[in-house]
């Protein structure tokens, strides 16, 4: 597959942001559960791209490359946060609303329940579920983005989805699917 950008031309950061920021923000927010941390990791990776534009020159699939980069930044940030929390004995964990608000109360309560169910997944399962469902990546692409074998990605997805189904089944039965599939 040829390079998306000519190898000697650095892609425009603004264009890169416009095209991918929403996906990166959603992934970061789902993983960190903190708007502040999501902002930090986005800032961090764009600062790195500005400092080393050559790192963008040879990317073949920009979305996959950016998701891989932000995943690593999230891991680094979570290690730093854990260190900070240990030092300050901070116990409370910030948790943000991850889904868009909905006017319909049934949809709103389903999204709240889904956010809570996702938060209960181990981060490695949550990452795979997010990339599969909301980024539509194949298991091979997920494996590449997360540095794990494809089989591991597939099994994490199965386990994660099963847990989501168990947690959401009561509300899923109560509300029904007809109302829920709305933007």
């Amino acid at each position, binding site marked *: 597959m040829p390079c998306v950008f000519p190898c000697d031309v650095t892609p425009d*950061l*603004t264009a890169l*942001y*416009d095209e991918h*920021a*929403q996906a990166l*923000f*959603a992934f970061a*927010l*789902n993983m960190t559960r903190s*708007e502040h941390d999501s*902002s930090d990791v*986005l*800032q*961090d990776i*764009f*600062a*790195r*791209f*500005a*400092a080393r534009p050559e790192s963008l020159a040879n990317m073949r699939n920009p979305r996959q490359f950016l998701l891989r980069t932000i995943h690593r930044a999230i891991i*680094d940030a979570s*290690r*730093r946060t854990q*260190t900070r929390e240990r030092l300050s004995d901070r116990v409370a964990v910030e948790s943000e*609303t*991850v*889904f*868009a608000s909905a006017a319909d109360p049934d949809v709103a309560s*389903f*999204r709240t329940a*889904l956010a809570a169910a996702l938060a209960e997944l181990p981060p490695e399962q949550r990452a795979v579920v997010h990339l599969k*469902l*909301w980024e539509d990546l194949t298991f091979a692409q997920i494996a590449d983005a997360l540095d794990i074998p494809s089989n591991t990605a597939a099994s994490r997805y199965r386990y994660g*989805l099963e847990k*989501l*189904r168990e947690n959401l089944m009561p509300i*899923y039965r109560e509300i029904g*699917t007809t109302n*829920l*599939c*709305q*933007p």
Partner: protein
Amino acid sequence: MNDFERLLRSQPFREVPPEWRREIVHRAREPDGTRAAGWREWLWPSPLAWGAMAAVWLVFLGGELSVLTHPRDTTADLTGAAPAVPEEPAVPRAFMFAPGQELLIANLR
């Protein structure tokens, strides 16, 4: 993909705050921002260890400077005699190389 997966996928995430666009892209291009990010990257993963090492070096440096500024007359210490007072060097003592050794050699002569 079954109905349940399709249902989950149809739930949209929050929009990225619009004000971030300018902040993130603008700050990424600032030289200070990149420099700070570079330092953070360099100091990571053990900023505390680096800080502790810097503190130890400062203590060593402080000790070394105090020895250079106030050298001890080891011969006088041993014999109990009044310490020999060398001529005032042209170069300030703090910048001389090993003034203690120089004093010892002068006493031996």
